[in-house]
């Protein structure tokens, strides 16, 4: 009896059809992500790269929505249940924004006030073999 709400939304055939539809959507979204990933390999412009990365993140969130909504069936649960799960997850908006801002700010402050560290991170190393040699001679 506890599944009356689900039973109302689903008869047998449409439920299976929905599973395959969501499978197809997830596959297509993944393929688009991969195409964007391959495309990004040849792009050097940082603005375009950022735009591609943003699109990949949006596609990632879309995939998460389909997995949680349809595979985990949350979309067909009662609104009370949806809210008790989704509302706490809204903390992630602050969580991500604050911490990425913090990381970026730390980088800028260190580059500004610690020129030695900044110079260290700008030394080019050409091969991984050379790194080992530098490490070996340094120790």
């Amino acid at each position, binding site marked *: 009896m*506890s599944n009356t709400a689900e039973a*109302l939304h689903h008869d047998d055939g449409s439920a299976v059809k929905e599973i395959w539809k969501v499978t197809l959507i997830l596959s297509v979204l993944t393929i688009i992500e991969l195409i*964007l990933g391959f495309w990004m390999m040849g792009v050097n412009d940082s603005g375009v790269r950022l735009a591609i990365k943003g699109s990949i993140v949006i596609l990632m969130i879309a995939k998460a929505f389909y*997995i949680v909504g349809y*595979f*985990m069936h949350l979309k067909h649960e009662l609104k009370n249940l949806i809210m008790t799960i989704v509302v706490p997850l809204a903390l992630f908006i602050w969580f991500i924004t604050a*911490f990425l801002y913090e*990381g970026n700010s730390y980088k800028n402050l260190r580059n500004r006030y610690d020129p030695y560290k900044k110079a260290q*991170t700008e030394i080019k190393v050409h091969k991984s073999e050379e*790194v080992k040699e530098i490490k070996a001679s340094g120790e």
Partner: protein
Amino acid sequence: MSTITATAAPTKLWGGGKSPFNVEYGKLMMWYFLMSDAFTFGAFLISYGTIRFSSNGWPNPNEVFKSFPFAPEGVHAPLVFVSIMTFILIISSVTMVLAVHAGKQMDKNAVVRNLILTIIGGIAFLSCQAWEWNHLHSEGAWWGANPFLNADGTQSSTNFTNYFFTITGFHGFHVFSGVVINIIMLIMTLLDKFEKRGHYLMIEKAGLYWHFVDLVWVFVFTCFYLI
């Protein structure tokens, strides 16, 4: 009966005498567990993001994850192996939904069939991950050791490998637990435990966990391999 519930449900959900969430206790608790687990993974990934944002350079994932099993040494196949892993996990998630669906129909044979497929998918994913870890380790990458250079050719710190092995390891541990849970579900189904209970709600809870593992991989895959 069902029409009465449908019309009365929206207005009297908090009136007492019934579950306002309309799910079984165990399933609700599984949801809350998964929510807490989402915050654990979120903390890991956000920590990774913070460190990456605070670094002047970072290795290019397409240079690091470019190998493929049985391919000749030096082959350049970025993203190929990890996309196979991604599809394995998506497909195993689909077979899990089909198992849950079969459980609702009380179709024992279909539950068994789809659970076996899900377990095979999980083991295949773990095998791929084991190969990848082994390969990276043979290249000199491990916790505290990073043989890769930053994308701009400067010396990289060990942050990259530390985060990679910690987060994919934590996810792999979840996949492993999921496979164990699914094997237990399979044994219980074969022993007719759920037939005797009259419902397959246990499969639904195992299914929720398994989809969560797939969900986390969507984020890990994007954060480490794509971006």
